[in-house]
């Protein structure tokens, strides 16, 4: 069968027939994330529907969740029109089933390394889950691993307090002390 050509037309929400075998499910959080996206950016990607049937209605191919959210959240009413991508011939039921699943499944995956370059809170706001970001992150090594020897240095620790006005003289003494092997001088000022 001929590969369909697609064009964008305006269709009433009430003229779109939902696919009753649509296997996509949605959680409350996912619905809220979609609503947030629509409210912020509108419908950036058109829905997809088949060519019209005799009664002028079209089977919805892609956009079931958006359709439901637009109505449920009262962003649009059933008489509102939306951009819909439609083919230049009527697709068979099987083709509609296949393209519905393909549009959902045949997409790229996110590169965890590049994804991790974004601010974590920004990603969470978009809708990513903590666990999902964690799962991604294990592929993203950032630190070099090295082996180090650790040594105990049994020492006598001595604390010497010097008034600030003697700091200049103390510096000379410290410099001398540091010349001795085995003497470690740590110094700082009181908080």
């Amino acid at each position: 069968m001929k590969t369909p050509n697609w064009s964008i037309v305006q269709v009433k929400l009430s003229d779109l027939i939902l696919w009753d075998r649509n296997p996509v499910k949605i959680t409350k959080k996912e619905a809220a994330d979609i609503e947030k996206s629509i409210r912020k950016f509108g419908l950036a990607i058109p829905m997809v529907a088949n060519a019209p049937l005799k009664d002028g209605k079209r089977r919805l191919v892609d956009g079931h969740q958006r359709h439901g959210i637009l109505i449920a959240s009262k962003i649009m009413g059933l008489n509102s029109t939306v951009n819909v991508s439609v083919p230049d011939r009527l697709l068979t039921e099987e083709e509609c089933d296949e393209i519905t699943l393909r549009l959902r499944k045949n997409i790229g995956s996110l590169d965890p390394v590049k994804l991790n370059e974004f601010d974590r809170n920004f990603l969470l706001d978009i809708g990513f889950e903590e666990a999902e970001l964690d799962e991604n992150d294990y592929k993203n090594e950032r630190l070099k691993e090295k082996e180090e020897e650790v040594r105990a240095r049994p020492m006598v620790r001595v604390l010497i307090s010097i008034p600030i006005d003697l700091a200049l003289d103390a510096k000379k003494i410290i410099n001398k002390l540091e010349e001795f092997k085995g003497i470690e001088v740590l110094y700082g000022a009181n908080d």
Partner: protein
Amino acid sequence: MAQTDKKTFNSYLADKVWLRARNIPKGEVNVLDCFAGKGTIWRAVQLVTGREINTLPIDTTNSDGFFYLPGDNRSFLSIIDLSRFNVVDLDAYGIPYDQLKILFDRGYKGCVFVTFIQSLYGQMNMGLLSDLGFSEEMVKNIPTLFRKSGWSYFCEWLALHGVKTIRVRGHQRKHYLFFKMG
């Protein structure tokens, strides 16, 4: 005794995972996961190594519903049969001094993974400094000294307890390390 250290946020998860994946013992791996959280790290280790890893998680809370020992890990570390575990995981936010002390005191033999994080204004554990010969008075007098050198004191403290080498990944004030005890 208050639970001083809590589970870290897994901002360097990959490094923690690979540190563990590359250093776990051969054969059966039984992990006592003392700051288990959601168990993300060891789940990922299992995933990247393809090996079966038995973990016994301990934490103060657990929201994911899997089996864990609820409570202060120090209490469990003090009484549990440590010979059942060839790995102990101390992925704490802070310095898990109390937990390590218990392991050393009980003569634990096995692999230990530790997260050492010293915040900029974080005090070093007095017990650790005391073991190194510093008195409480010294620390009180000049606490800034011990904030700067926390990591090197910690390494020195490990050496005092017989640790010879560590494998470490470090980032600013965070250090993820592995070593063998016993």
